[in-house]
């Protein structure tokens, strides 16, 4: 393929040009977040004449950033831990039981993936409020309910590659069902667990509508506080942009540390 180098050069330039376009919204957000509102209206494209950090101080405070960061982290991590443990257990049980009932249960879980959130949100919030579960624990449970389907589907698929002789050997050695699962099978499912974790971080961390219906203001996550913050400073772009920049920093850090796993996790989740 050596003769193609000349052509690849142009493809590369095209690629870099497109990448700059893709990045431009982030560039505009960051540079303008360091300007005063007046500087923004003078020149929106250029670098700030002098960097203003006051925007960030106020945004950090008004977004209640640390509290929102903690709430987002707590809800995301707890939900994912529950989804991983309970879905892998179910995927394992459904794969090892070859009955019709097991097939029907799998079908129910998989079909649930097709139901859009808006179809159940009204009755779901009313149902959960009837036993005082409109709080972050209720929310974590809801994420388990919504998130388990895809996870079970992925775990069930991966189980076909794990030989039943492993189970049998463990049983002969005196392991219980749960021990077999936890010590022998679960470690082998690690690649799927990584995929499940990544897909769910992207979904739960960024989710807005469900938490906005469920959480009280002390429990608010980053997207919820961002929504109210933005509403408060509609004409003050300098502040709004500093807030937006702050809000995306955690997930961008996550992306740069785990991009390889993220891309392959997303591929697995989409193609299967």
């Amino acid at each position, binding site marked *: 393929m050596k003769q193609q180098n000349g052509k690849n050069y142009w493809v590369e330039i095209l690629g870099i040009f497109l990448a700059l376009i893709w*990045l431009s919204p982030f560039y505009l957000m960051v540079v303008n977040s360091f300007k005063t509102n007046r500087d923004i209206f003078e020149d929106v494209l250029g670098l700030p004449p002098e960097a203003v950090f006051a925007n960030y101080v106020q945004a950090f405070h008004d977004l209640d950033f640390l509290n929102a960061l903690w709430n987002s982290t707590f809800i995301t991590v707890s939900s994912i831990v529950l989804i991983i443990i309970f879905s892998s257990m179910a995927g394992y049980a459904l794969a090892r039981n070859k009955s019709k*009932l097991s097939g029907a249960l799998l079908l129910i879980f998989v079909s649930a993936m097709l139901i859009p959130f808006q179809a159940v949100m009204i009755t779901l919030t009313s149902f959960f409020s009837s036993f005082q579960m409109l709080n972050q624990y209720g929310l974590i449970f809801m994420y388990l309910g919504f998130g388990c389907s895809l996870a079970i589907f992925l775990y069930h698929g991966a189980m076909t590659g794990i030989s039943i002789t492993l189970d049998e050997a463990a049983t002969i050695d005196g392991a219980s069902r749960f021990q077999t699962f936890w010590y022998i099978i679960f470690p082998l499912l690690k690649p799927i667990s990584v995929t499940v974790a990544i897909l769910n971080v992207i979904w739960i961390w960024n989710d807005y509508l469900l938490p906005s219906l469920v959480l009280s203001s002390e429990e608010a996550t980053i997207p919820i506080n961002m929504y109210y913050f933005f509403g408060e400073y509609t004409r003050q772009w300098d502040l709004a942009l500093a807030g937006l920049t702050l809000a995306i920093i955690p997930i961008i850090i996550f992306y740069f540390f785990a991009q390889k796993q993220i891309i392959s996790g997303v591929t697995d989740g989409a193609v299967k």
Partner: protein
Amino acid sequence: MRNRSPAFWLFIAPVLVALMLVVGVPLLMGFFYTFTDWNGLGFNQFVGFEHYSRLLGDDRFLSSLWFTIQFSFVSVILLNIIGLGLALIVTQKLKTSNFLRTIFFMPNLIGGLILGFIWQFIFINVFGQIGQFMNVDGLQGWLSTPTTGFWGLVILTVWQLAGYIMIIYIAYLQNVPGELIEASQIDGAGPVQRFKNVTFPLIAPAFTVSMFLTLSVSFKIYDQNLSLTDGGPFNSTEMVAMNIVYTAFDSNEMAYGQAKAVVFLIFVSIIAISQVYYNKKREVEM
């Protein structure tokens, strides 16, 4: 593991209970309540199909449905063309392939709510200032008319999701055997012919996968709609999901909102079922 074995049920129970309480019960309750005058707490009487017949005359709902269909149609086409284009670029043997892939995918990591706010700034301020500077009227007043609101939403969605569609196409492109490409080169096929006759037929399944995926994603969009245009001006860019939220939680017409949600479910199910049907048919043909 047998059906009767307690271990089987213990392994299934947590997710089964969660699914039933979070999806199953609310779904059934939802169907039921659409035939009543439910107000979120209780109901007094059955109203038959009243909510559903009211829907047919609800101009705001119908126009949100029509807007959603138009938006999905345009987004699906653009997303697939651009997603495939990006995939073709980054699968060439470039020095920057990994870097480019990282950049194109990046917007997917961030929530639609935040991205909508960022683009609101870009459409209003950046477009406005460039338009003023270069004397282009078309760049000014974005998001203040139905047309610019529509294209604003399309641009945001395409920018956000194209990298995701790219990932799907890459997965399929990498499965195209190198020998086939080489063989076609030896036979004298140019790049266009090669793409048309060798690559494209082999990645056709990717086209189905991502077409349905983008269709169902764009049909269900809410966050971007809320933060970019909030349905404005005058509800002209309101999509179905937003209309349902508005009916239920802003005008507090719970049963009526739920009837809209059921209609929405039917639309989304038709998309999903036709995908399953189409995939089955294709598998048979292969």
